């Protein structure tokens, strides 16, 4: 087991390197660049754009730029933003807690709400509850995230206010220019969390339901029932076994916790990783984009490893070698 994990960790290094090299090439292949805004401004002369390009080292051959960047990375230096001159490690560090708060909360709500619904739906296969939860999952799955977010704002902020009801703030992490008291922060969390959890639940309900259904159809369930084991006990056995795919899903969700939910963050003005990535992509802030590539690829690789390890702990049939 220990050797397995060690091997997997060692395998991660070349994998992440390859990812960065490919990403570097892809990001640079996209038209435009961090100086596009200058190029589009009639008051800025091409000489200035060229000079700034040289100052930023963007005139060097691509492989050289990559090696310089890699050298920095190996020394733990993610560099500075090409657009704002800010320290990238610091930029990321200020965003991660915000993104984690929102993502962990939404994920927790999703799991807590979706698993019982999925199990219940499976136990009442083809009955009204199952049909309704199926319908919910299908409809919500099809709703685009930005639309749901805007809808929530229009109903719970705009309409509720116009009806004279208590209304929810339509964005931000806390009331601006206050220290952000706990209750104030919680109120601000409601809508973005809902916008993340509502569609997130849909997939999870379906996963749980089908995993549970599969287990309920297994021979051991029939055997257990036949020898007179009571239904709740059988359900519990089946449920434990149906957790396997759900755990895998959680592992795969790990990077999402950090990468942030772009659409929800933009709609609700949440200063998280999603917006950081969005702005960096729009401005072609190469150094920031590369830093995000490194962080997210490490997370994906680690998330997969964790899922595999937990899998083995839960299922004795899975062995490591």
């Amino acid at each position, binding site marked *: 087991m220990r050797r397995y994990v060690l091997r997997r960790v060692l395998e991660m290094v070349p994998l992440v390197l390859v990812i960065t090299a490919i990403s570097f090439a892809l990001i640079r292949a*996209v*038209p*435009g*660049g961090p100086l*596009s*805004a*200058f*190029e*589009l*401004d*009639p*008051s*800025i*002369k*091409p*000489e*200035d*754009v060229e*000079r*700034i390009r040289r*100052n*930023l080292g963007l005139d060097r051959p691509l492989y050289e730029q990559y090696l310089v960047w890699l050298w920095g990375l190996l020394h733990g230096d993610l560099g*500075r933003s090409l*657009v*704002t*001159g*800010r*320290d990238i490690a610091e*930029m990321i560090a*200020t965003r991660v807690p915000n993104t984690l708060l929102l993502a962990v909360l939404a994920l927790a709500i999703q799991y807590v709400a979706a698993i019982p619904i999925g199990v219940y739906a499976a136990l009442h296969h083809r009955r009204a509850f199952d049909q309704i939860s199926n319908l919910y999952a299908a409809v919500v799955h099809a709703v685009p995230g*930005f639309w749901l977010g*805007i809808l929530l*704002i*229009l109903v719970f*902020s*705009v309409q509720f*206010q*116009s009806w004279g009801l208590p*209304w929810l*703030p*339509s*964005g*931000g*992490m806390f009331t*601006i*220019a206050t220290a952000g008291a706990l209750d104030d922060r919680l109120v601000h969390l409601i809508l973005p969390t809902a916008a993340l959890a509502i569609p997130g639940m849909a997939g999870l309900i379906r996963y749980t339901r089908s995993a549970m259904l599969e287990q309920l159809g297994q021979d051991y369930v029939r055997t257990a029932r036949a020898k007179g084991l009571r239904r709740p006990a059988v359900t519990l056995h089946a449920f434990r076994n149906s957790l396997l795919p759900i755990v895998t899903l959680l592992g795969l969700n790990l990077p999402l916790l950090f990468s942030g939910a772009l659409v929800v*963050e*933009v*709609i609700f*003005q*949440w*200063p998280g990783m999603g*917006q*950081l990535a969005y*702005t960096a992509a*729009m*401005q*072609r802030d190469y150094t920031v984009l590369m830093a995000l590539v490194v962080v997210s690829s490490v997370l994906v690789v680690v998330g997969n490893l964790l899922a595999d390890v937990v899998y083995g702990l839960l299922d004795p049939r899975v062995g490591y070698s």
Partner: protein
Amino acid sequence: MTKRIGRRRLLLTAGTAVGAAALVAACGPPTPESPARPAATQPPAQVPAAAQSPAAAQPAGAPAAAATPAAAATKPGEQAAAPPAGPPTRIVDGQFSDASILNPVLSNDAASGRINDLLYNALVKVSPKDGSPQPDLAESWQTSEDGLTYTFKLRKGVKFHDGTELTAEDVKFTFDTIFDPEVNSPRRSTLLQALEGPGSVTVKDPRTIEFKLKQPYAPFLVQVMVRGILPKHLLDDKQGKEFNSADFNTKSPVGTGPYKFKEWVKDSYILLEANKEYFKGAPKIDQYVYKVVKDQVVVGAQLKTGEMDFGVVDPSALAEMEKAPNLAVSKYDNLSFVYYAYNLDKSKTELFQEKEVRQALLYALDRKAMVDAILFGQGAVADSIFPKVSWAYDPTDNPQYPYDPNKAKQMLDAAGWRVPTGRGADGVREKNGRKLAFTVYTNAGNKVREAFIGVLQEQWRAIGVQATPKAEEFGALLNRFNKTKDYEVVLIGFSWGVDPDESAMWSTNGQQGGFNTNGYSNPKVDDLLDQALRETDKDKRKAIYKQVDKLVLDDLPSAILVFQKTLLAVNKRVKGIEANTFNLLSNVEGWTVG
């Protein structure tokens, strides 16, 4: 004869064409910083209106200490104690994109310009009425007979937010910084166009500074002197490359402006606090919040709930905003327009070499209907190359191109572009075996421009011209338009500065990296544009631009379709905002909230 088309029909017919484009568009939001985007109806970045200020870097030794003075000076507690007690008053300015760098030497985007206008002052500011230069940090200035020497007298007793008094040394320092090639200022070459180098700026005494120009340069005051002044004492040790990433730029900017920097939560908000020592009087509103809301619908929602006090709204949301009981919407002309460029480079396409073709295509467009349908009536048919609010705007005697499809057809017939007859003919005009068929590009994600190219296709089809609309991702379009120049027609838009100099777009020099990307060259226009740049007498200069206007509109290398308006929704509790495109914040210290 020229039957007007209703909005519904115009959009319906165009709809099919743009359908595909719109799909692409939905995937790619417009580049926030691009000055070309229609939402950039705020004072354009390049404009002096963006009279931003500099940011200072802090002494290397004490970054943490330097970061605090602004904040320390205005602890909420102290503030509440001094004026008659009560919670601080606050105004919330809603914006689509976050600022990037709060140093006027380095910044160029409209968002950063907005904050820099609040943090810093320049020697000169532009008047909100007509964009003419007015004293700001300079209480007066004199120009020598030959128009080459400008001497500025600084106001007495102006203090930076950290209490240090501003002197002519700070002004000199700011300009020296721009001259430094290692500093990433996008304005170095512009400055070098007017001045020889650091030696051209001389401190005469602590309150007097002199600028020696290479040659008379008409836009000097509104283009060069409107940039914010940096505090030398905080940035002196951050020279060269270090200047570009100084903490001053993003964490502790210090200027002389009406508001001081307090806090910046990136992609969320910037909080500024009133500068009680402001030389034009302490601002009446205690806190200025710059709130970043990137979604248009959410902007509307927050204006209605009062979570935002003022913000620019989309023409499509106008009716809804006007219905909201707490809002008043101001509509004002701005400096931006939508235009399309014909590629005149023969190696790319030979379709637009004849003036008649270029003109006929414009006659075929019902631009009034476009204003009504696409801009919801918030704009005007362009009748000059100068924006409506510019002092150079004067459409009298300009060649005009009213909607007249029959005239367009006759002109094309006369130029030899005939509709082929016979079997299998597709109705597309031909000349010498070449079809009058081409692609019109614009940037995906900009709904207004996508609607325009759809309508262009439809109305040109009516005269036997086949245009294929294509919306491309912004970076790709820019590359096509500016670098490879592989296009026939590109539709785009942008904002001009306060000064009417449009050389970047119409002079032959503008072909090298400027905005003359379609290869227009008319020696007469070049001459006139150069003359105008050197003519400091406004009336004489205006007369020169009159000639340019006529020549360019006749040559028609590019067709300016419409002028746009800015729609500013303001909460009725706010008093004192003078809605205008030149300098919205000119009287910010006098604004009040009820």
